[in-house]
């Protein structure tokens, strides 16, 4: 049972910033600069937080988790986009 999160971060040091990006890439889609969209189970969220805590500086950096609700079901998240198109992330069987 997944929830949809927008995770955004503000990391002051370039090296930490790169490491943060690398961690986030393993959990979600890069949406905008320092913004990721992730579909996470409770376990995955805990693991992501643990990985981020190892990278960021407790006082200088900040990561925000914005909970956009359940990712099950067909409801679209309450997100509107101006400019380039936005497609909500889904986890469905991939057939290529």
């Amino acid at each position: 049972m997944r929830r949809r999160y927008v995770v955004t971060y503000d990391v002051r040091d370039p090296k930490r910033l790169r490491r943060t990006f690398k961690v986030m890439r393993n959990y979600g889609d890069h949406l905008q600069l320092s913004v990721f969209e992730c579909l996470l189970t409770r376990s995955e969220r805990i693991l992501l937080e643990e990985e981020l805590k190892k990278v960021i500086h407790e006082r200088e950096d900040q990561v925000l988790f914005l909970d956009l609700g359940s990712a099950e079901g067909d409801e679209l998240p309450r997100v509107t986009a101006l400019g380039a198109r936005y497609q909500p992330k889904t986890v469905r069987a991939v057939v290529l």
Partner: protein
Amino acid sequence: MNSPDPNSAPAEERRPDLIPARMLNEYAYCPRLFHLEYVDGLFADSADTVEGRAVHRRTDEAEDSLPEAGPDEPPAVTRSITLSSDSLGLIAKIDLLETEGNAAVPVDTKRGRAPNLPEGAYESERVQLCAQGLLLQEHGFDCDHGFIYFAASRKRVRIEFTPDLGERTRSLLKEAREASGATAPPAPLVDSPKCPRCSLVGICLPDEVNHLKAVVEGVPPEPRRLVPARDDAVPVYLQGHGMSISKKGESIEIKGNGEMIQRVLLKDVSHLAIFGTNHLSVPVMQALAGRDVPITLFSEGGWFYGVLHGMGLKNVYLRRQQFRSSEDPQRCLDISRHIVAGKISNCRTLLMRNHGDPPRAALDALREHRDLALDAADIPALLGIEGNAARIYFAEFEGMLKPRGNGDGLSGFEFKNRNRRPPRDPVNAMLSLTYSLLAKDLTVILMSVGFDPFIGFYHQIRHGRPALALDLMEELRPLIGDSVVLTAINNGEVGKEDFLVSTAGCAFTEDGRKRFIQAYERRLDTLVTHPIFDYRVSYRRILEIQARLLGRYLEGEIVEYPPFMTR
């Protein structure tokens, strides 16, 4: 290696030397959980266990060594100490230990909140702490109390090691030692509030087992839906041409013609299905094998021919039970009767629901055959009954294909009879593919449950055939296999242009097959009400539940294997 086969040793010798205090906690919590984890070696993570490990990682940075006990020893705080005692037969990892002089006080970290109890903590947690106390006493310390630190409440609770608690701890230790020699798990807890948060609930199936037992013995309790309705991870199918799959970080990248087609996170993959000659890099194989994610291999034409999987061996007792039962003709017959009866019943239901004008004679004949199957004298008789029923069913199959609205009265597809190897027309090509996919999904699930997919009860063992997958597939062929074909045709999801017919048989076009597989996946994702347990789960989850119920039947927990039949 000259050591004797550990599985042939008598019960006393089969027990491990040292019981971890953590496992004592599990035993006190639920003896069945103890058996599944400790004896069967099954482990499933839940959010709680993941969080528990995270909380402990912060205290586990380095292992210290045990300070000395003595009247002049200064106060000390040590972390992550492992202590054991052969005489007690116990081993424990103490998160934090406060010592001074001869006294030692263990502090155990728990991730949750402090419970609202007069004793301060649940018995299983107090017993685990007391076990640490017993070990400290063995090592020369005075230890009459300890603390449990509840991380979520940031609260330390003092636990006295009273004579009663000590007695209880010792007696549970003795029981756990006995239990670790058992080959079959104890019965599940009945309607317990402990079950919903238990990480092994999807493996244990407490309510389902209790329900099936009670149906035989008396009033059945209402099963709760404790397993998630759907899987979190999904399959990835690669059925195009010339694609290559490689690993990038914790994701797999699928490229074609040098261009990136799609990136999928490893955490989201339940299994990989590769058709034809596409390229797979070894790092991907390693990453998937490490996560127990299997890779299934199909020929260009959709024939399921191989599985790549890691070495995660578990649930060995189930496999032994499977082998033994497969050699018992009565067991094989019992299971086979139910499987075939289930299949015939589902075929009949499908005809009733989907046929334009359900043929009374065929429906009655199928009902008769279902009853005959339940009483069949032996497997050859059953094969005959199944064969007849299949002929009756497929004779009416075309009646389930809706005519297209363009007035010519034809759906564009015909079905005269079942043919395969190779299929000669589109409907048969679709049936073959859907059955192949279903065999794949069942093979994957059977392996994850701990079965050997090649040893079956109804289907005889033959080279290259996953007999058990074919067994469990029977009752699901109409409901998942045939149903997908009907939906794909009747909703216009596939058309005549999606097939190539030649003297060599009928094959899908790449595009047509892609859409067909998507239709199959959608069906598996559909929620359905389980006819026995009355809760809604996806068809894919049904496959797993049926596989686990077969396991429960083989282990003697339920009296017969209940096939999945819709009303």
